[in-house]
């Protein structure tokens, strides 16, 4: 732990720091050594290794998801360093990655716990940046954390490759030049879900929303509302529920006699598991309303959530970023090497984290330097394939990846303990694209003053 390589302290800052503290002597002279040499923060040129910061929830409700993300990161590091079977390195196109580290430097990492709290996540990211000297931070399992860490990274001049974050804001209102999101967003969920909902449930439906009362919930509600109303659905009501409510009965019972025939649960994680299990207990799925079967839709799904909800998830429609049962070459290679390493299939969070790491590494190779502005320019507008989602574009204007979106259904008759979601439809990329200006926000500068 005596890693005292101090970085990111400019000479000017130091002198004044001394003046402010009135104690120049108290500032160890060891800081000053590196301060001259670097033209950008945490330049790995001197150290011979590229250090990445994996900032994932290790405690709190998303700890399992975080653990899976961490597994994926470790796997990615292995593959980048030429260990293991290479995974998606073999299918990723166009790729300059050779399994020889990045730009000849061995990839190492540092981990931290976001606790799924903005403050803790930023503190953890700062530790990685200030103490461990990481050049890129990645991970996370909620939008609040992603937005918070992303803006921190912008200030610090460190690239942030978001993990699981689904809010439109991450690459909309709160987008940043240094932040990139491979995961899809609420808008895309809505756009992808709409045609399937139309096909399955028809265009004459009355929807009732229960929405987690915070920013992600609202953007998702809005996106789903827009796309279902475009189908001709009517929105009966949209009710906000407190985060972590636990027992949702008082929100579910009014649905019973509201005249709605579809319940849309804009919840994630534990909230979704609870509200869905309870809605099923209240017999919503056995109901007939307006002569139609009552349906429940959960726009954002993950396998871990499906596990928590148990039987309640069976037959429920939703979207997901990726699923291990996909049969394209990239997915197969990834599942193969992940499964061989850990004995279980990767979650969608693990997938996005793995892909993000590879994308960053590749951009460095393409730029021929670790200098962040150059790396960013390589990622912006980057077209790639072979990463499990078909041809994908990292849109330059908002740093959002555009790719096909999976519509899935909870598996009625799973063939194994992991076989919980069944891909119903793949909504092609063209249908989920949108004009980047609709969410506002601005990316900010490439160069960050230090």
């Amino acid at each position, binding site marked *: 732990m005596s890693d005292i390589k101090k970085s990111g302290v400019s000479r000017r800052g130091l002198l004044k720091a001394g003046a402010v503290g009135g104690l120049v002597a108290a500032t160890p002279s060891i800081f000053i050594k590196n301060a001259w040499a670097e033209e950008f923060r945490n330049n790995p040129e001197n150290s011979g290794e590229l250090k990445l910061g994996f900032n994932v929830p290790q405690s709190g409700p998303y700890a399992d998801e975080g653990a899976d993300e961490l597994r994926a990161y470790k796997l990615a590091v292995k593959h980048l360093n030429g260990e293991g079977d290479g995974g998606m390195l073999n299918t990723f196109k166009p790729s300059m990655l050779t399994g020889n580290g990045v730009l000849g430097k061995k990839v190492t990492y540092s981990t931290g716990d976001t606790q799924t709290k903005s403050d803790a996540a930023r503190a953890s990211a700062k530790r990685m940046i200030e103490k461990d000297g990481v050049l890129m931070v990645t991970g996370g399992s909620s939008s609040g954390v992603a937005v918070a860490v992303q803006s921190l990274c912008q200030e610090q001049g460190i690239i942030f490759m978001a993990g699981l974050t689904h809010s439109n804001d991450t690459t909309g209102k709160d987008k940043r030049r240094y932040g990139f999101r491979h995961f899809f967003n609420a808008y895309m969920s809505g756009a992808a879900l709409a045609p399937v909902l139309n096909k399955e449930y028809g265009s004459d439906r009355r929807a009732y929303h229960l929405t987690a009362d915070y*920013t992600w919930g609202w953007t998702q509600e809005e996106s789903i509302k827009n796309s279902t109303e475009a189908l001709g659905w009517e929105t009966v009501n949209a009710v906000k529920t407190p985060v972590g409510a636990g027992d949702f009965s008082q929100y579910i019972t009014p649905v019973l006699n509201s005249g709605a025939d579809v319940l849309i649960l804009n919840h994630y994680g534990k909230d979704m598991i609870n509200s869905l299990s309870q809605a099923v207990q209240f017999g919503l799925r056995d109901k007939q309303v307006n002569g139609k079967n009552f349906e429940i839709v959960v726009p954002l799904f993950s396998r871990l959530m499906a596990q928590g909800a148990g039987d309640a998830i069976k037959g429920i429609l939703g979207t997901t970023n990726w699923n291990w049962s996909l049969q394209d070459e990239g997915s197969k290679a990834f599942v193969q090497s992940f499964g061989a390493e850990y004995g279980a299939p990767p979650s969608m969070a693990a997938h996005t984290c793995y892909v993000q790491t590879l994308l960053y590494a590749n951009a460095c190779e393409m730029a021929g330097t670790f200098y962040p502005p150059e790396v960013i320019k390589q990622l912006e507008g980057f077209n790639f394939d072979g990463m499990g989602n078909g041809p994908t574009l990292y849109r330059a204007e908002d740093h959002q990846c555009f790719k096909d979106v999976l519509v899935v259904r909870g598996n009625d008759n799973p063939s194994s303990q992991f076989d919980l979601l069944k891909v119903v439809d793949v909504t092609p990329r063209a249908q989920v694209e949108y004009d980047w200006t609709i969410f506002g926000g601005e990316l900010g500068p490439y160069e960050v003053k230090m």
Partner: protein
Amino acid sequence: MTNTKKPLLNDAFVVIIFAAAILAMPIWLDPIGGNYPDLLQKFAIYGIFAIGFNILFGLTGYLSFGHAAFLGVGSYAAVWSFKLLTMNVLPAVVFGVLFAGILAAIIGFLSLRRTGIYFSILTLAFAQMSYNLAYSVLTPITNGETGLQLARSDPRILDSLFSDGSVGAGLPSTDLFGETMSGYPGFYFCAVLLIICFYISLRIFRSPFGLMLKGIKSNQNRMKYTGLNTRPYMLTAFIISGMYAGLAGSLLAVTDPLAGAERMQWTASGEVVLMTILGGAGTLVGPMLGAGLIKYFENIFSSFDDNVLTQAFSFLPDSVVEFVVPVVGLFVGSGWHLTLGLLFMIIVIFLPGGLVEGFRRIVNYFRSGGKTKPQSVEAHNQAGE
């Protein structure tokens, strides 16, 4: 804490030692991996928070479970000051302290009508209401879950008066007359404030006012029948303590201009309670030690993954490493909470009175030439509720 018998010189000495120790943190924390700006800042800031909490809890025995509300309000006020007025940190700090003080006056006025656990639950309820509202309904003011952040388009009225108003391509950073308040300068800024806060706290402990607060803790009835109106004393202590929390909150925003609702959650209130008890409630430096220990665990222990462990134990034979790393791994990295929980239990079981009591015992042990002395009554009472 029999303060009447201590000469003033002693106190000046205490402050000087304290100041030296705080300002030299970058040096002596370096070997244990605690030397980087963010953690140093957190030590100083949560030190202020805990010292302030101790003025209420340590002196009067009133256990507030809602102090995070003041921390949060301090942060929001500071960020709004950055957004609306200026990036200079001084107004932000002033507003943070001011708003926290106002909120503390309101909450304190109502909550102090009750004592004991009823008081604790009242403060908890107020803080939880603040948190829940900030998280959802008050989003226009607090920006909800995402947290209140700066934007390039913020008005910053005062800044635009004195300069051309252009802030360059990126977000402006907080400053103290030109000196950026992130990194080490930010730490020194916080450290100086911490030292001032410590001095104020020491003066309160040593003042007639402090004696009155201790009297309230000891016997509220006697205070009343002695002709003292305990309510204004309590309220003042509550407000001072709330302002400390507000200062800490505003400093969180100064070093990192973002304010999130979770700062007001009960877990944050509980954290400062734990810090204070862990270090030693009612002692001068105890709360600061408790704050440092908890923050160190949260930031450093949580980062020890298999990688780090394997390196740390690389002096051992491989076969031993394979065994040791997973076992130790249970207690660090993602298991850091477990260690923290165990630490709470061990300290409170074996060291009633917290860390400070531990040091006292060590000192006593050496003074008495190796013979363990029965624990002094005086020391025991500092731990009191």
